[in-house]
């Protein structure tokens, strides 16, 4: 049972001209087993939402709440949030030179589970997860994200998703920069995760393309720091046909 509840979330970032409000009251509930897509134009605050849930320091929460199964997520440190069951697949995964993927995955799994994984099954699990994402077994000896192609970075994020097995996954533009083959591979990984019992997914994207492979239960249009409209997957079809102009016009009038 896992339920992510975001209520009237307000977030600012510090800029040269002082704090700037990016999220202006976001309310969203992701129940277990549900996949929600958040779509919106550039600069609407989609990534800020993802980072705020994960706890990135440069974002300041000025109001509202985020809870996971009733637990106050905002009171937790970044690593505590991950251990509570949240996962963020990043748009721009960070290079960690000299730290091998194998070491990184084992360290993360140990931290999440509170104990080291059983060696024999773990190696099998890692190789299986990498293989499923079309990543070579030698991949685990490379330094985390260093010299990875854009596609390799995203596939590595999804391999982590499958291995770390969180309750709720936030995928921040995991589809950006992927060719169609890589997009299919990544989508299959996300769908394997969704098929597990009770998992929630918050899929943030600019494009409707990925929604052909990962079918959302709900679609939310994100404009100017809040949800402008919510609906079923038919809303994505409408966005595909009409774009975001309909939502942007009132703002520019």
């Amino acid at each position, binding site marked *: 049972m896992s339920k992510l509840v975001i209520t009237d979330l307000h977030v600012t970032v510090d800029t040269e001209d002082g704090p700037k409000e990016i999220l202006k009251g976001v309310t969203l509930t992701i129940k277990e087993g549900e996949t929600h897509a958040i779509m919106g134009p550039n600069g609407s605050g989609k990534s800020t939402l993802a980072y705020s849930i994960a706890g990135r320091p440069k974002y300041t929460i000025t109001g509202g709440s985020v809870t996971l199964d009733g637990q106050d997520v905002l009171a937790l440190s970044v*690593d505590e949030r991950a251990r509570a069951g949240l996962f963020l697949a990043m748009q721009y995964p*960070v290079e960690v030179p000299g730290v091998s993927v194998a070491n990184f995955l084992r360290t993360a799994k140990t931290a*999440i589970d509170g104990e080291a994984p059983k060696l024999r099954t773990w190696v099998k699990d890692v190789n299986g997860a990498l293989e499923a994402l079309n990543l070579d077994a030698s991949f685990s000896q490379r*330094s985390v994200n260093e010299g990875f192609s854009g596609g390799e970075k995203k596939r590595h994020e999804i391999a982590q998703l499958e291995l770390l097995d969180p309750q709720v996954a936030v995928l921040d533009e995991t589809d950006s920069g992927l060719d169609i083959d890589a997009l299919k591979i990544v989508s299959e990984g996300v769908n394997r995760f969704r098929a597990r019992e009770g998992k929630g997914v918050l899929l943030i994207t600019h494009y409707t393309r990925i929604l052909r492979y990962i079918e959302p239960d709900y679609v939310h249009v994100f404009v100017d720091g809040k949800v402008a409209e919510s609906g079923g997957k038919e809303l994505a079809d409408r966005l595909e046909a009409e774009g975001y102009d309909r939502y942007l016009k009132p703002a520019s009038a």
Partner: protein
Amino acid sequence: MTITDSVRSALEQAPALDKVESHLHPAGSFDVADHAVPTGREEIWRFTPLKRLKGLHADAPLDGRNVRASWAAPEGVTVGMVSGDEAADLRGVSGWAPNTRFTARVLAEVPATLLVDVPAEVEADEPIVLEVDGTDADATSGAHVVLRFGRHSKAVVVLNHTGSAAVAAVVEVVVADGAEASVVSIQDWADDAVHLSHHQARVGRDATYKHAAISFGGDVVRMDANVTYDGPGGSAELLGLYFADAGQHIEHRIFADHTAPRTKSNAIYKGALQGEKAHTVWVGNVLIRKVAEGIETYEENRNLVLTDGCQADSIPNLEIETGEIEGAGHASATARFDDNQLFYLQSRGVSEQEAQRLVVHGFFNDLIRKVGVPSIEERLMTTVEAELAKNVLKDLSA
């Protein structure tokens, strides 16, 4: 990289002198009287805390019995103390004359030489390990060590310094034509040790020389690791790894003097600093002489500052007297932890301290692998771990 045309034409107009006008490498002399006691204002001494050197830079006696040396020599390699004429003949065997008072004094005053002789074409399977263990930090002493790698030989020499002592040392390395030599010097001294050392190597034609300077312990550790070339095609890899704690002064200087054409030098020094008044210095001197056409050089220094109150000085110097080279470059960076890296690791459930530990391990990992001696690699990882336990991981056990 190629030199710009304007620089090249300026070089062409310069008088064709072999003598190099530079304060970085004053002319050498075996006569101690030619070397004044440094005051600390000299370019080559300006970072070194002279007051903490126990007089090694000046006139402290060099005959103290404060170190015990022991060794294990694999088959075919000779290791031993030599004295008298034999020792005298080895003074300056690297084709170099002392450029500092302490090196001139060591050559003039220390009667014996520790000689490692790897005969021509001998390939030693095991590292030749010289254990230097200090027994008294109040006594001062000097040491002259010669590492001689014969033609087409291949060997690794490890100098392992532990314990308490104040030592001024000159290590001369002769890498004959076609030889493949590795010298690893580990400064794992006790907290009160003072170590002033000069490693001077002459790299023969088509020879390969790897020098790794690894400094963890000691109150003041200063090492100059210099290389000249005895013929074309020689290659030198100068590696350094250091970890300075509160109050420690660790200073590494390198000088790759490209004295022959088509030679290579590649230097990578990486350091971490933690604690009040931890001070590290890296000075990377590269000189490309007029004769040294077609050479390739790159030098890099990276420092990771783990706490407040530390100071890392990093100075690359590149002097170019010919534009006809393959490449020359340098990089220097001193930084704190990268918040993005820590956030990424923490977002995977890894605690902040564990994330810092991973990042530091990663920082040193590649360099440790480059040292290329498996038994040492493992020990270095353990030592890095122990250093981290002093600060970064302290809160974990609390």
